[in-house]
């Protein structure tokens, strides 16, 4: 089943395309990694798939699909005195508005999500007091609260230690095994190589598709990067 389909899509800012001619089909149960050099347009493509940028050309179909979005945790302000549970409960806000309060069922679901991501003990802790890896897992729990068909993650392992990276990856692989489609942006090539089914290589405004073994071979990387700076190898 196709969840998201891009046909000859172009995304950019102030009518200037950053990536163009993108064809992509995100099907149920697939695991995609978006990689490429810094400034190549990974984030622009990601925001286009997410629906935060309208296509400048081509089309994007995602009707009826629930997207679970996991932002980079650095974008969230530590000033907010939110508990981990309050952050996860935000995933239930889609159907809550005005006086409709968070129900006991929502609280139970958010508690279960926190247990699921290994943060059952930290549910009353301040979100800003959690470690980087814990915050990332709480954001994954929040995305899961939306009951998504596809999970979109922006640099989920950026800035966390190796143990936390491994934990996040194990969680993503588990979700993938359960049939959830996943699409992540990362500059950790080794992580992408080990985890994903398909790679979207973004470079110089174009997107190449392929398997990790095909696109992330050392000789292939040399050719793709040419004179561009290589992404950090985790």
């Amino acid at each position, binding site marked *: 089943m196709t969840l998201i389909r891009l046909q000859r899509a172009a995304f950019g800012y102030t009518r200037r395309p950053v990536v163009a001619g993108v064809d992509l089909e995100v099907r149920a149960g697939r695991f995609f990694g978006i990689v490429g050099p810094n400034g190549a347009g990974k984030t622009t493509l990601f925001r286009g798939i997410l629906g935060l940028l309208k296509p400048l050309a081509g089309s994007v179909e995602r009707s009826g699909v629930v997207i679970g979005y996991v932002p980079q945790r650095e974008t969230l302000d530590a000033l907010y*005195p939110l508990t981990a549970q*309050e952050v996860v409960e935000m995933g239930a806000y889609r159907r809550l508005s005005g006086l409709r309060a968070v129900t006991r069922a929502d609280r139970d679901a958010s508690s279960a999500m926190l247990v699921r991501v290994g943060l059952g003990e930290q549910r009353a802790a301040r979100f800003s007091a959690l470690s980087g890896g814990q915050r990332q897992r709480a954001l994954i729990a929040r995305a899961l609260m939306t009951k998504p068909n596809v999970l979109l993650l922006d640099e989920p392992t950026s800035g966390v230690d190796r143990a936390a990276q491994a934990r996040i990856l194990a969680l993503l692989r588990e979700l993938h095994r359960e049939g959830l489609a996943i699409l992540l942006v990362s500059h950790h090539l080794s992580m992408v190589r080990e985890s994903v089914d398909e790679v979207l290589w973004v470079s110089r405004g174009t997107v190449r598709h392929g398997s990790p073994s095909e696109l992330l071979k050392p000789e292939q990387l040399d050719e793709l990067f040419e004179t561009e700076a290589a992404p950090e190898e985790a």
Partner: protein
Amino acid sequence: MDISWADRIDLFRFALSAALIAGLVCPLIGVFLLLRRTSFYGIALPQFAAAGVVFGFVLLPWWAQHIGLGDVTLEMALSDTHAVMNYHLAWAALFTFGGLFALVWLGRRGGSEIGRVAAAFAIANAATYFFGRLSPVGKSFVDELLQGEILGVGVHELETIGVLLGGVLVCIFVFHRDLVLVSFDREFALVLGKRVVAFETLLNVLVGVGVAAGTMTLGPTILFGLIVLPPLAARPFASSMNRFLLFSSLLGVLAVVGGVVVSFEWDFPLGASVVAVAALELLPALCVRRN
């Protein structure tokens, strides 16, 4: 002659009730300004409101002659500033919203937030004195507001602040979850399909209404103190967002009650006394941060 506490409370019941309403609601506005890192709006916007009030006085003779003030004559309007309260409030609101939308619009173009707000404050402050030169009556009225002497608040001002800040309170109570969401993680809110721009506009309107009504009734001194200080005092002790809102509001009310005691016991201006008590509430928060 000694006046008993009961007599003082009865005599100044409108002013005290208005201050208590402000103590309850203004810190809630301040919570969102603080979290969105726009607390300095709390300084600049009341100054815009004050400039608007004085500008209204400048225009008052022309307005009375060409548009009219209902049953109120120009002499009555100039001698009793409460007589055309809605007229003054309208000018305060117009200048507040003008300043607010200018700050939001300039904010979207990037640059230094602090620099923008400082410039806005300087301009609004100069405008207050400039208009004050053209209308000495308006200037003396605003000087009274700036001193934080609010005991002259009458029933009309109380009704006005009650309705307007009551509306702000109801909106924050009903929409606080969405307002927190769009402030904390705008992109996640967009992905959830929330009407982010509508909620951001609502928040700006709540800030504008609260500041305009509060400045017109109680003056910038008490208003700025109640917007900024209680949330700063409450934040280190708030273990959740709901508690942050609740503690801020409680500290605002406590500052008003404490300010009334200080003002009545030592004969200080009520507004300044409220702000002084609110400042004392910061001490525990400073100790916690030091630890």
